[in-house]
C-alpha cells in the first residue's frame, strides 16, 4: 500500500521533471532514511554537548585565575577563527591517525568518525556559546552581584546562582541562533563519510545524477529541523522569562 502511494508521488513528480526514482529502490530509500536519522542523532548529540562545553568554557573565561581565563580564551579564539571543515580534517585525518599509531594494535582506536564529528562540532559551537554566555555574564548588572556578595554568597555561588541564570536568559536568543547554525553545520559530517543525509545524498546522486531533487528534499528537511529549534527556543524564552528583565 505504501509502495503504491510512493509510486504515485514519484510519477507525479516525474510529470514536472523531477526524478525521484531512488525512492522506489529499497536500498537507496533505506539509506536516505538512515541518513535523516543520523543527522537527527548528530544534531541532538551536538546540541547537548555544545551547551555543556559552552557553559564550561564560559565559566573558565570569566574565572579569576588568569591562566585559566587565558587558556580558555586561546582555545575559543582558535576554534572560532578556523573553518569547521579544516578542524574536522585535522581531527579525523590527522589526530585520529596519530592516536591509532600511538595505541598498540590490541587496544585499538575506539573513536569512530561519528564521535569525531560530534567532538569537533560541539567544541566549535561551544566556543560560540561561551562567547554569548560571556557577554550575558558581563551584562549582569554589577549592583546585583554586589548585593549577592553582601548577602554572603561566595564567588562560586554567585556565578552559579546569580550570574549564570541571568546570563542564560540574556544570551538565549544568541544561543538559539548558534544552535540553528549547529544543525546546519552537521552537514560537514559528509566530508568524512559519517552517513548523514548529505553523505547519503552524495552517494545517491553520484550514481543517479539527480542532484536537484535531493537538494529539494534536504532543504525541506533542514528547514523543518531549524524551525523546530527556533520554536523550542521561543518556548524556552517564554518559560524562562523573568519579570523586569528583557522585553
Amino acid at each position, binding site marked *: 500500500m505504501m509502495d503504491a502511494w510512493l509510486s504515485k508521488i514519484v510519477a507525479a513528480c516525474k510529470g514536472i521533471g523531477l526524478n525521484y526514482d531512488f525512492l522506489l529502490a529499497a536500498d537507496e530509500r533505506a539509506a536516505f532514511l538512515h541518513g535523516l536519522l543520523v543527522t537527527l542523532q548528530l544534531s541532538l548529540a551536538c546540541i547537548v554537548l555544545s551547551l555543556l562545553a559552552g557553559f564550561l568554557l564560559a565559566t573558565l573565561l570569566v574565572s579569576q585565575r588568569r591562566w585559566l581565563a587565558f587558556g580558555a580564551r586561546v582555545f575559543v579564539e582558535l576554534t572560532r577563527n578556523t573553518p569547521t571543515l579544516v578542524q574536522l580534517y585535522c581531527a579525523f585525518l590527522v589526530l585520529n*591517525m596519530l592516536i591509532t599509531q600511538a595505541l598498540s594494535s590490541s587496544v585499538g582506536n575506539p573513536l569512530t568518525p561519528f564521535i569525531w564529528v560530534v567532538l569537533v562540532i560541539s567544541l566549535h559551537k561551544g566556543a560560540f556559546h561561551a562567547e554569548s554566555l560571556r557577554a550575558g555574564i558581563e551584562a549582569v548588572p554589577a549592583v546585583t552581584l554586589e548585593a549577592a556578595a553582601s548577602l554572603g554568597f561566595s564567588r562560586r555561588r554567585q556565578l552559579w546562582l546569580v550570574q549564570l541564570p541571568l546570563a542564560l536568559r540574556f544570551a538565549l536568543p544568541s544561543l538559539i541562533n548558534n544552535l540553528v547554525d549547529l544543525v546546519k553545520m552537521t552537514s560537514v559530517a559528509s566530508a*568524512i563519510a559519517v552517513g548523514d543525509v548529505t553523505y547519503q545524498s552524495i*552517494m545517491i546522486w553520484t550514481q543517479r*545524477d539527480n542532484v536537484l531533487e535531493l537538494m529539494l528534499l534536504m532543504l525541506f528537511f533542514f528547514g523543518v529541523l531549524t524551525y523546530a529549534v527556533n520554536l523550542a527556543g521561543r518556548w524556552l524564552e517564554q518559560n524562562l522569562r523573568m519579570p523586569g528583565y528583557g522585553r
Partner: protein
Amino acid sequence: MATVLATGVFMSGVAHADATLDKIRQRHKIVVGVLLSGGPFGSIDPSNQKPLGWNVELAQDIARQLGVELETVQVQPSNRVQLLQQGKVDILIAGMEWTQERNEILSFAPTPFYQVGGVAIVPQDSSVRRWEDLRGKQVCLSQGSNYAKPLSTEYGAQVQGFKGSSESLLALRGNNCAAAVHDNILLQPLVNDSPEWKNYRIIQPALIPGNSVVWARKGEQDTVAAIDKIIQGWHQSGWLIATEKKLNITPPSPVLVALHGKFKKI
C-alpha cells in the same frame, strides 16, 4: 603514419563531425579531464602546480596529434561522469575502466590504454586475507568508485565513500576501516616504494579488472574514432611502453606488451 591517419580522420569529417569534435576544432583546444590521485599516474608538480603523470602525458599526445591546444581539468571519481556529461570536459582520461553501467551513459574509444583493477590495502597483521574476509567490515573508498557495488553486493562489506583516495587512505591509517579499496595502479606503488606503507599489504587478485579506456559523451562517434586511431598508433609504435618506463611505473604491464604485439602485426 598514425599522425597522418589521425589528422586525416580529423580533417575528412568536416561536414559530418559530431558536436564535440566541432567544438574542439572551433576553439582549437581540447579539454581533457584527468585524474590526479597521486603517484606516477597523475600528480601535481609543486614548483609550478602543473599536473604531470601518465594521464597527463596521454592527454598531451592526443592534443598534439589532433593539432590543438590542451587544457587539463582535474577530476575526482565523484564528479568525473558529471563533468563529462555537463560538457565541462571533452574526454576523460581518468583510469575509468569499461563497465556496462558506464557504457549505457557514455561512449568510449574501444582500444584500451591500460588495465586497471581494484585491490585492497590492509595492515600487515590484519585478519583479512581474501576478499571474502571483508564481509560485514568497513571499507574505505572514493565517492563514485565503481568498486562500491561489487564490494557491498558480492562481498557484503560496508562501504564508506570519501572525497578522494588521500582521505580514504588517511582514514585507513586511523583504523576507521578494515581495508581501503582503490585502483591497483594507485596502491601497488605505495606498498612497493613508499616507506610509510611498509606495514601494509595488498589483497589480490584484482577486483573487476577491466580495460582503461578513454571516455566521451554518448553518441560522439567521430571524437571516439579519432581518439581510437591515436591510441592504436600508440600501441603500434610502442610509445605507451616507453612512457611507462619513463615514468617508472612498475611492474610493467603485460597488457601493454600484448597490445603492442597485436598492433605491430597490423
